[in-house]
C-alpha cells in the first residue's frame, strides 16, 4: 500500500476528510480487501491506544498538582488541608445564608407525592420537563441552576443529619438491595457504582428519593474515613436535555460536578476538593458507562 493511502485511511478514520475525499476512500474500501483489513487494524490500534492511557483519568489527583493549579504554596511535613466536614452531630455550623433550609419542605412535598402513589405523574405536574426542548435557553439555564441548588441542598440535609441521615432506604449487607428498592419508585432502572475500593474507600450508606430536573431521582449517599474526601452524594436521574460534559459548579461550601449522558443526569456533590470529585466522577462515569 502506498504511503499516501495510509495517510488517507488514517484521516478517514479520524473523520478529517471532506465529503468528496471520504467517498473516494469508501469506494476504495469497497474494492480493496487489503485496504479494509488495514483500516480495521488501524481502528484496532487506535482503540488500544486510548485504553492504554485512560486509566490515568481514574487516578486521584495528587495534592501538589491541585495546589499548583491554585497557585498555592506548599509547606512539606505539615498536616494536609482538609475541607471541613461541618455536619457531624454536635459540630453543626451555622451559616449566614440558609438557602438550603427550604429543602426539607421540598423533600416533604416529594414524600407526600410518593406516598400518594403518583410518583412520576405527580412530579411531572409540579415541574413539567416535557417542554424542555422548547424552553428558552435562559429558562433552561435557570432550571439547571435550580436543580443544582437542590442537589447541594440535599447534600446539606444529609450532612447536617449527622449519624442519622434520613434515608428512604438504608444500605444492608448487599448494597444493591437499597438501590433495587428505590428503583421501584423511579421511571428507570438504577445502577450502583462501586466506590468502596482504593483510592476512594467510600461506604454506601443508602439511598433517598429526590428530584432532579423535575423528575424523580436516586440520591446515593456515601461516607468515608478519608477526611480529605468526606461524605458524598451521587444523584442519578433521568433527563430529556442534551448531553453535557462534566461541569464544575459550587454552592456556598458545596462543590458539584454534574453532567448528562444518554438521557440521564448525574451530579456528584460534596465538600471534597474538585480534584477528588473529578477523579470520582470519572470512575462513576467509567463504571456506569455514563460518559
Amino acid at each position: 500500500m502506498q504511503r499516501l493511502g495510509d495517510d488517507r485511511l488514517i484521516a478517514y478514520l479520524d473523520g478529517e476528510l471532506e465529503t468528496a475525499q471520504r467517498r473516494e476512500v469508501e469506494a476504495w474500501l469497497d474494492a480493496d480487501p487489503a485496504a479494509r483489513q488495514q483500516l480495521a487494524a488501524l481502528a484496532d490500534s487506535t482503540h488500544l491506544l486510548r485504553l492504554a492511557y485512560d486509566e490515568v483519568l481514574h487516578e486521584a489527583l495528587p495534592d501538589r498538582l491541585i495546589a499548583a493549579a491554585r497557585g498555592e504554596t506548599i509547606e512539606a511535613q505539615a498536616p494536609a488541608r482538609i475541607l471541613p466536614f461541618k455536619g457531624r452531630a454536635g459540630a453543626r455550623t451555622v451559616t449566614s445564608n440558609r438557602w438550603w433550609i427550604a429543602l426539607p419542605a421540598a423533600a416533604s412535598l416529594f414524600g407526600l407525592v410518593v406516598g400518594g402513589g403518583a410518583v412520576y405523574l405527580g412530579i411531572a405536574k409540579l415541574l413539567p420537563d416535557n417542554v424542555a426542548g422548547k424552553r428558552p435557553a435562559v429558562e433552561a439555564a435557570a432550571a439547571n441552576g435550580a436543580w443544582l441548588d437542590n442537589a447541594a441542598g440535599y447534600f446539606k440535609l444529609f450532612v447536617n443529619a449527622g449519624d442519622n441521615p434520613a434515608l428512604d432506604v438504608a444500605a444492608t449487607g448487599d448494597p444493591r438491595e437499597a438501590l433495587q428498592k428505590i428503583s421501584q419508585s423511579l421511571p428507570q432502572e438504577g445502577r450502583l457504582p462501586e466506590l468502596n475500593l482504593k483510592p476512594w474507600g467510600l461506604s454506601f450508606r443508602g439511598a433517598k428519593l429526590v428530584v432532579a430536573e423535575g423528575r424523580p431521582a436516586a440520591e446515593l449517599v456515601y461516607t468515608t474515613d478519608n477526611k480529605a474526601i468526606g461524605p458524598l452524594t451521587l444523584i442519578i436521574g433521568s433527563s430529556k436535555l442534551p448531553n453535557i460534559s462534566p461541569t464544575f459548579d459550587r454552592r456556598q461550601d458545596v462543590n458539584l460536578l454534574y453532567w448528562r449522558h444518554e438521557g440521564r443526569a448525574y451530579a456528584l456533590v460534596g465538600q471534597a476538593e474538585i480534584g477528588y470529585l473529578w477523579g470520582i466522577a470519572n470512575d462513576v462515569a467509567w463504571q456506569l458507562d455514563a460518559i
Partner: protein
Amino acid sequence: MSFRHGLAGSPVRLVSSRDPASIRFGDQLIAVLPRLRRFARGLAGSASDADDLVQAACERALARQHQFQEGTRFDSWMFRIVQTIWIDLVRSRDVRKEEGDMPEERLGSDEPVRRVEARLALAEVRRAVDLLPPDQRTALLLVTVEGLSYKEAAEVVQVPVGTIMSRLARARMALQAQLEAGRGVGRSRTDAEAR
C-alpha cells in the same frame, strides 16, 4: 529524568490568598488536570515525571494567565504549555526512559491472571508509544488520545496541518508495526478489554 524533586507523597499544607478571577482560573485548571496528566504521561513515560511536567505547566499557566484568550479552548492552551516545556527538556537533555519504571500498580501479584495480562498488553502499547520520536508521539497523543482535530493539534504544536498529518501517519504505522511484531493486535485487544 526528573523535572522537579521532592514533595510528592509528603503531607502538605496549602496556603493561599487569591482573588475571584484567580480562583476561577484555578478551578478551570483543576478541571483539565486529569487530561493534562494523561497527555504528560504519554509524553514523559513515567507517572512522577509526568506529574512534574504538569506541575511546571500549572505554574507557567498561572504566571501567564493574562495571555489566555477568552473564547479559545483552555485545554488546547494547556496542552501547548505542557508540550512546550517537554520539548524544551527533550532538547536540553538526552531523555532516556529508565528501565523498570513500570508503575507498581501494574505489578500487583494478587490480580487475576487475565487482568494482569490485560495490563501488560496496555503496558506494551505504552512502550510502543515511548519508542516513537517526540514529534510523532505528541501528534499521536493529541489527536488519537486527547481527541483534538488536526487543526487544533497543529495550533498546539504550531506547525502546519499537513505536518501533523504526516507525523500522525508515521506514528500510527510505527505503532501498528510494533504491536504486530509483539503479541499481535488481536490478542492485545482481547486482553485489554478483559480489564
